[in-house]
Structure formats: C-alpha cells, structure tokens
C-alpha cells in the first residue's frame, strides 16, 4: 500500500541532494563570475566553498519551507522556514554587484532577523503543537528588537536608496552622519539579537539533546543543528557587537572568524533544513498512506484490517481503534468487546473520527502524531468502511450481550433450582425423616407394651413416610444433582450409571473440575441421551468425555442407526454455556455431541 512512496533514503536522494547540488553550483557560479562583492558577504575573503555551502543551506532551507507550505502539513515550520530562507540570502543580496539600492537595503535589513528565525525554526521542527508560552515570549522580544534594528538598517543602509550616498552624499553630511551613527547602533542591536538568539537556541537545544530524545522525526538532527547555529551565532554576534563598540581586530583573524561563523551557520542551518524537509516528507508520506487506505480496501475488508491499515498509515504499531456503540454510548473493539474510550497508557492520546458529524470511532496513538491532520485526509470510502466495521462491531457486541444474558438467565434458573433442592432436602425431607424416626420410636414403645396392632399400624405409617423420603430424594436429584456440583462431572456420570436402566459406559479424560455451566450441560446431554437410548431399546450407551484441550467434547452414542433427537431445551443449555450441540450418525451408531469451551 505504501510501496509507491519513497523511503527515507530515496527522498533524501530525490530532494536534499539536488537542492544541495544546485546550491553549490549557484554558489560557485556566483563567486567565479564575480557577481558577488567579496568585500561584503557572506565571507569577506570570498572563499568559494564557504559561499557554495551557504547557498546550499539556503536552498534546502527555502526548499523545506516552501515544501511544507505547499503540502500544507506543517504550516508553521513552512512559514518560518521560508522566511528564514529569505533572511538567509539577505547578506548575499548585499554582496551582489547590482545597482539596486532597495534590494541591497532589504538584504542588509534581513540579516538582523536571520538567527531569531532560525531559532524559531529549530523550535518548530522539534516540538509538536504550539510553542511553550515562555519560548513564545522570548521569540516575541527577539523579533521586536530584530525588527527595529532591521527597520533602521533598511532606512540607513543606503540613505534615499543610493548605495554610494554614505560616501558621496557630502552635501547631506548631516543626514549621512545621522544615518551612519543610527546604522552603527542598529548593527549593534542586530548583533545583540543575534548573540541572545544564539545563546538561547544553542543552550536550549543542547539541553534537550542531553536530557531526552525528541520524539519528532528528525528532531535530534534539528537540535544538533540548533547547537551549531547557537555557537556560530554567539561568535558572530560578539564579533558584530565588538565592532560596533570600536574594537577592531586584525584582518586575518577577522576573516578566519567570519569564515568559521559562516561555515558553522551554514552547516547548522543545513541540518535544521534537512530535518524540516524530512518532517515534511514524513507527514506527506503519512498523508498519502491515509489517502491510500481506500486503495487497499476490498469490497468487504476483513475485521480488524482497517485498524492495522490505520496503524501502518500513522506509522505507529500501537494504534488502537475502538468503535462507537451509539445505543450504549460506549466503545467496543472490532470483536464487540467493551473497551475504554480514554488513552490506555501514558504518552498515548485519543483522536475521534466522525462521519457526517456523528462519531464512528476513536484512534489511540502516540501523542506526537498529529492524527487530526491525517484523519482529515481519510477518503469517504474509508469512512464508509469504518462505519461498516463499526456496525459489525456493535452487532457483535449485541450478540455478546445476548449470549451473556442467556448464560445469566440459565445461571439464575440453576441458582433457583439449587435453592429449591436445598429447601426440599433440608426442610421437607428432614422433617419427614424426623416423623419416620418418631414413628419408629413409638413403634418400639408399642412393641414393648405388647400392643401388636398399634405397632403394625405405626410400622405401615413408617413405611409410607420412608416411601415419600425416597420419592423426595429422587426429586431432589432431578432438581439439582448435588453429586454433580459437589464431586464433578465424572463421579456424577458414574452415579448416573449406578441406576441407569441400560449399561452406561463412560470413558472420561477430564482434568479436575470445569466451569459448572459446562459440567451441567455435559451431564444433561448424557441424561437426555440415556433416556432416549433406553426408551428405544438400545443395548447400551457409550459416553466419551474429552476435556484435555480448551474445549470439553462430550459424545454419547448407542449402537443403533436412527439418529438421536436434540431437544431444544438441551440445545439452549449447551448454547448458554457457549457450546454447540449436534446429533448424527457414525459407524459406531447414532450420537449426540456437545463441544463446550472451558476457558
């Protein structure tokens, strides 16, 4: 499904390498053809490789920014990246030997905002969501100071947009002098802004790299870029501030420093720009995957396939999809099991998916994935498929509830039978026995007194009472076989064999006790089969019980060919225990079989 989209290595080859190459070519061309005024920027000594690197970094920066803007996946980073790219080329513009004072003034002005913009880009590329309030305030102050410096630089760089004015406007000496001192001051402010931005982004990036791994794709690379930018900006800023205060250094040191600053800034910026591009590619790939979910859908996707499709589209193997059960106002999983609607572990968040304004599902995913943006990309056909899966899941949930309800009804019935048996056994039967005991004592007394007539009347009353005791004993066993609930299936079947009208052969392999519903269903199957077999004159009934696996299989068969009948009552009992009842014929004869889950 995602095979058509390039992997990390191929997008690097397809996007970053060409941008870097073009940047290098332009940079070399600029230097070789003397378009640049080596006295101005980016390095005074006009090192070709430094210029080429500078242009490359700028190309990737603008490429990433514009890419993010166009693809609309990370708009903030895109905007900041584009602006930073424009500012990046500012100093170069001033170096171009063109007689366009406006362009040169713009170039000079933009330099003051370059490092704050780069700092902003590092922040945007490494932290999801909106910026922390403190960072936003620091940025606002830096932007404000930088803008003031830019404005002043823009106005005073070339007064009245005449590049030669500083040197030639002798007639306007006062204006030029004023412009010159304002220009120097603006340069100092720009230097301070650069210095502060550098310290801030360098230290915070280093701290974040050391303290914890940034979760965004390419985050570490962007932070390392931030550290390098920070160091370069600190040196560059100090240098500018020092010059503003009249501290001149030797030309050689100055050139070396400028070259180092330029290369450092270029390398750091390149790293950040590549990280932005990578994030763009990542988002774009995810969006394509979201869109392509529809392509992978068959007309009736198998249950759960949408969940795994979403998981791979979001590139998060722990993605969990839960469907909205409108009737119960709760969530169920794909198999209809009730699940939580809130995140199940820290670091996870839940995003809702709606169709025509109605909730259909929630997706739980890593907190750093901007799932809202991706879910917007889901095509209507995917939403229909999700809604279908939701309907199936809620049907399964209803089925589950019905089954549970049937099992509960059975349980309630069984509990009632147990209570009835106890009442009969501990009540009526005990009292009847007590009467029989009483009659026997009276009879012994009558015997001793020589009252033979009375004794024989008492004896017949006693045998009547004992007849009822026997009757009640049978009734109790029929209502609830204590031998089953107390000693288990195998002894209960053995007890059944003790009084069976035909031979009952039981071959059982059962590891200890099983759920009572399962034992009861199996027992009742044998009772039923024994009843049918004896009524149709079978010679014997053979019972095979296999409870060694996850299921208990109980099969009763007699040697006659005609099938046994599966009564609805028994089917209900087996069904309530979650099992299946079947009748049929095998070479051994007719059989009645139940398969009951024991888990």
């Amino acid at each position: 499904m995602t095979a058509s989209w390039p992997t990390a290595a191929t997008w690097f080859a397809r996007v970053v390498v060409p941008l870097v190459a073009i940047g290098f070519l332009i940079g070399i061309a600029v230097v070789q053809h003397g378009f640049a005024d080596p006295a101005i920027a980016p390095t005074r000594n006009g090192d070709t490789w430094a210029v080429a690197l500078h242009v490359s970094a700028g190309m990737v920066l603008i490429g990433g920014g514009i890419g993010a803007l166009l693809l609309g996946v990370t708009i903030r980073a895109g905007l900041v990246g584009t602006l930073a790219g424009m500012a990046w080329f500012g100093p170069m513009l001033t170096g171009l030997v063109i007689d366009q004072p406006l362009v040169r003034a713009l170039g000079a002005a933009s330099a003051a905002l370059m490092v704050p913009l780069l700092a902003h880009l590092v922040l945007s590329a490494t932290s999801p969501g909106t910026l922390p309030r403190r960072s936003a305030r620091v940025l606002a102050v830096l932007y404000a100071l930088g803008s003031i410096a830019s404005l002043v630089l823009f106005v005073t760089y070339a007064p009245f947009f005449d590049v030669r004015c500083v040197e030639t406007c002798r007639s306007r000496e006062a204006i030029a002098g004023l412009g010159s001192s304002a220009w120097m001051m603006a340069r100092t402010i720009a230097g301070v802004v650069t210095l502060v931005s550098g310290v801030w982004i360098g230290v915070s990036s280093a701290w974040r790299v050391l303290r914890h791994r940034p979760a965004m794709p390419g985050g570490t690379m962007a932070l390392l870029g931030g550290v390098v930018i920070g160091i370069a900006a600190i040196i560059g800023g100090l240098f500018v501030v020092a010059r503003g205060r009249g501290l001149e250094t030797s030309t050689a040191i100055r050139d070396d420093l400028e070259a180092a600053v330029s290369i450092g800034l270029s390398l750091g910026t390149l790293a950040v720009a590549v990280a932005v591009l990578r994030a763009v590619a990542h988002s774009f790939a995810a969006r394509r995957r979201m869109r392509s979910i529809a392509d992978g859908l068959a007309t009736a996707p198998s249950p759960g396939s949408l969940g795994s499709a979403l998981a791979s589209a979001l590139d998060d193997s722990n993605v969990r999809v839960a469907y909205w059960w409108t009737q119960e106002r709760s969530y169920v999983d794909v198999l209809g099991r009730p699940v939580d609607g809130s995140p199940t572990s820290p670091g996870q968040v839940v995003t809702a998916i709606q169709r025509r304004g109605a909730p259909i599902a929630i997706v739980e995913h890593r907190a750093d994935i901007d799932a809202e943006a991706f879910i917007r990309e889901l095509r209507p056909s995917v939403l229909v498929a999700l809604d279908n899966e939701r309907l199936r899941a809620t049907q399964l949930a209803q089925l589950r509830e019905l089954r549970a309800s049937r099992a509960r009804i059975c349980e309630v019935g069984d509990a009632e039978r147990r209570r009835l048996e106890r009442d009969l056994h501990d009540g009526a039967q005990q009292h009847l026995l007590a009467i029989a005991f009483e009659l026997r004592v009276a009879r012994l007394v009558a015997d001793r007194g020589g009252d033979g007539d009375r004794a024989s009347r008492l004896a017949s009353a006693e045998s009547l009472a004992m007849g009822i005791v026997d009757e009640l004993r049978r009734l109790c066993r029929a209502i609830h076989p204590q031998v089953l609930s107390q000693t288990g299936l195998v002894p209960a079947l053995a007890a059944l064999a003790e009084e069976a009208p035909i031979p009952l052969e039981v071959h059982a392999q059962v590891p200890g006790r099983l759920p009572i519903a399962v034992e009861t269903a199996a027992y009742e199957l044998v009772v039923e089969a024994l009843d049918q077999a004896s009524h149709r004159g079978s010679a014997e009934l053979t019972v095979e019980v296999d409870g060694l696996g996850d299921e208990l299989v109980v099969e009763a068969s007699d040697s006659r060919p005609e099938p046994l009948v599966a009564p609805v009552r028994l089917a209900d009992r087996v069904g309530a225990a979650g099992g299946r009842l079947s009748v049929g014929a095998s070479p051994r004869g007719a059989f009645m079989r139940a398969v009951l889950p024991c888990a």
Partner: protein
Amino acid sequence: MRVIVAEDVMITREGIVRLLVEAGVDVVGQAADGDAALSLVARERPDAVVLDIRMPPTHTDEGLVIAGRIRDGFPDIGVLVLSQYVEAAWAMRLLQEHPEGVGYLLKERVMDAGSIVDALRRVCDGETVVDPTIVSRLMGRQRRHDPLADLTARERDVLGLVAEGLSNRAIAQRLVVTERTVETHMTAIFGKLGLEESADQHRRVLAVLALLRA
C-alpha cells in the same frame, strides 16, 4: 458406647438421639455444626461420632471434611457419616481419604437399632462400613464390562457383605455357611481383584474400594 451426634436440623437430631438411646447407645453430646462437633469431640473423647454430611455453612459436604478432621486428630474415634445421598461417589470420597474407622450410612439406617449399633462398633474397631442400599445399587448396576465379572455369584455376595462392614463370622451367619468357607471366598476375591498379600483389614478396605469404583 459413648457417642456424639452432629446434625444441624434440630428435630432430626432429636430423632437420631432418641433412636440411638433406644438402641442402648450412650449419647454424650449433641452439636448443630461441624465446629461445635469438633470441640465436643476434643472435650468428651467419645468412642464414635455420628455426623450429618450436610451442615452449615454450605450444606453440601461439610460432614466429610469434619469426618476427616476427626480421624486425623483422634485416630481412636470412629466416625459414621449419615447422608441422604445414595450415590457411591460420596462414600468413595470418604473411604479414599480415610480408609479406616469410617462409615457411610443413609440416614434412615439409624432406625434399625441392630445395624446402627453394629456399624458403630465396627468403625470403633477401625473397620469401614458402607450402607447396604449403596452396595446393592452398585451390585445391581447395569454393566457390560464388569470389573467384578471374574467373581462368582457367591463371591460377589460375600464382597457386598464385606462392603457393608460385616465380619467373616457375621457373613458366615448371614449366608448360613461356615466361617472357614467365607475365608476361602475372601482369599479367592482378593486373588481375583489382584490385591497383594497384606494385613487382612487393609485388603478388605481395598476390596470395598474396588467395588465402589467398579
């Protein structure tokens, strides 16, 4: 013979006590549940205890548990469990865990003075007793492959009477034969059931268990 009676239903307990007294048994204590029975046993040290199988709290098989605890704690005291359950499974549970000095009788057996006194004496002597009704249910069971098939009809009768707890002499009287003949039958039964040479009493219990399991 000093006996303690444990039964939770009062009128039944009173009936049992009256019948035991009529039969000449010295009832030295009555208990309404298993714990009371155990403390009474510890205090009175009777010769035997008559226990209802169903007692509080669950009214299922407490009697079997208490019987085991009495046998474990006081090996000299015989225990007769009275029950309404006619299935052999319960008797087997009792005998398997404590094969000596225990008996399993249907509750109405207390009405037969001779049987109950005989059973009490036997459990006091460390023998085992199973209710004749249960034994005859087992003997009369419909079966195709009979583990006891090798036994002759006479030997089966003898085994049934052994299960009921009768001594060789009592069996001889019941079957109107000499005690010597009964001994011959017993030897044949042990041989056919594959019971090794061991103490006679132990083999008798094993023979009864074979019958219960069959």
